[in-house]
């Protein structure tokens, strides 16, 4: 596993952008990593675009604010337009294909669209979209253990929502399966 993962997650407010990053950061802490989670804040959080930079590292993190990324999880078109060029060559750009009609055409990065919104409908809860994306991301970049993500969710979610833990696990698994399905599609 590599020592440093610099990730940006971006989309509309309400899509679960910040909580996706926070869950990953929390799992990173459980795995004993250095972490930093930097949200965009202010008027953007009230329905506009939202993004957060999440960094996981085996050593002390210098800048929590960075301009290029190892990976990007993109949930809407404006964020695709803004961040696609800022993924480092050889990096990963994972996007929610139902919300994005014009993905990047870069050939020097790994691009993959996941129909997470459609998949979330299968789970009968469209709020699981972000966890499906997280599951897909971790299938491609196993920077933290899935069990650590589950532990993080158990610690972050108040008791009264613990009945949703199993749904979240299903969402993570569905994300991982979606990646394998996309890979097969690409090969054929």
């Amino acid at each position, binding site marked *: 596993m590599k020592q440093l993962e610099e990730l940006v997650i971006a989309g509309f407010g309400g899509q679960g952008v910040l909580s996706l990053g*926070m869950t990953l*950061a*929390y799992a990173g*802490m459980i795995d004993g990593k*250095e*972490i*930093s*989670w*930097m*949200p965009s*804040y*202010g008027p953007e959080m009230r329905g506009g675009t939202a993004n957060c930079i999440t960094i996981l590292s085996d050593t002390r*993190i*210098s*800048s*929590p*604010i*960075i*301009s*290029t990324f190892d990976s990007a999880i993109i949930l809407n078109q404006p964020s695709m337009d803004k961040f696609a060029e800022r993924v480092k060559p050889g990096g990963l750009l994972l996007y929610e294909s139902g919300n994005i009609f014009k993905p990047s055409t870069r050939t020097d990065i790994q691009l993959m669209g996941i129909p997470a919104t459609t998949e979330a409908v299968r789970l009968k809860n469209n709020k699981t979209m972000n966890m499906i994306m997280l599951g897909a991301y971790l299938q491609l970049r196993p920077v933290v253990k899935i069990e650590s993500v589950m532990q993080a969710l158990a610690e972050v979610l108040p008791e009264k929502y613990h009945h949703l833990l199993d749904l979240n696990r299903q969402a993570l698994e569905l994300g991982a399966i979606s990646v394998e399905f996309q890979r097969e599609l690409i090969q054929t």
Partner: protein
Amino acid sequence: MNVTKLMKGNEALAEAAIRAGCDAYFGYPITPQSEVLEYLAREMPRHNRIVLQAESEVASINMVYGAAGAGFRAMTSSSSPGFSLMQEGISYLAGAELPCLLVNVNRAGPGLGTIQPGQGDYFQATKGGGHGDYRLIVLAPASVQEMADHVFLGFDLADQYRNPVVILSDGAIGQMMEKVTFKPYQKPTADKSWATTGKPASRKRNAISSLFIQPERMEQHNLKLTEKFNRIRESEIRFEEVNTNDADYLLVAYGLSARIAQKAMDLARAKGLRVGLLRPITLFPFPEKRLRELATQVQGMLTVELNSGQMVEDVRLAVEGRVPVAHYGRMGGMIFTPEEIERQLETFFEKAYAN
């Protein structure tokens, strides 16, 4: 027992306040520091401490005056426009030598400005935004961990010197999440026999005032304060150095800027440019001596600040013209990238080695 949590800077600061034995918090909400008030309003009553949302920042700071005068560990927090409103009260606190902790989660200004991070309040914090001849001890956290640690340090320094202490943070450090390890709960032990707690027959009357109407007495008080500020200059300078041993060029930055500058330094070093970083942790007292020493070693210094050039003046005063000192800044809530700073460094090295 020490506990490690994932928290926002503002929340870590609030939790640390409880653990450091803060008795009373007075504040008024303002972005980007409202989490401090929110967290304390939720948690302080469980510890039988006081939290009061005042009608304004002017009221908060004067409530701090009252609580500190009665011998309690008192604090307030705000962000730039709110902190400006407190300046008269801060001058009175300094004049009356009242220990307290004041937090400014700096946003971009002037005026109402914007809620994004800034470092435009450096002058206000270090040179005194209020009237009269006073100094505040100013701490500049650069991580969520330091947001917590500086609360303990700040309260202790305030008690030790009977002086207000400011934590000058910024919107990004306040809003970002990192790991933070908390020290155990602490019971303050400072002697507060000067406090106005009701006069028993056994001692003389205690009085707290910043009024010295006779010039002779006022000057004596000024001299006493000056002597105290000099003692603080002697004993309380704190800073961090990275890669200064072999540095040809020095970055100087505090708070969030220091974190970004450190990444810029790494980028420059990867290209073979010998760059070091000095990060002041106390902005008053300022690490003047160390900068003066480094001025005999490096060929130049660059301060990196989220303002139009404030700390750069203190760096220039410190090096006394020995080396050129430049400034690079972004403002208005815009933040420089590590690459942006690295380009500034390259420009310097190109010039330096052109001939």
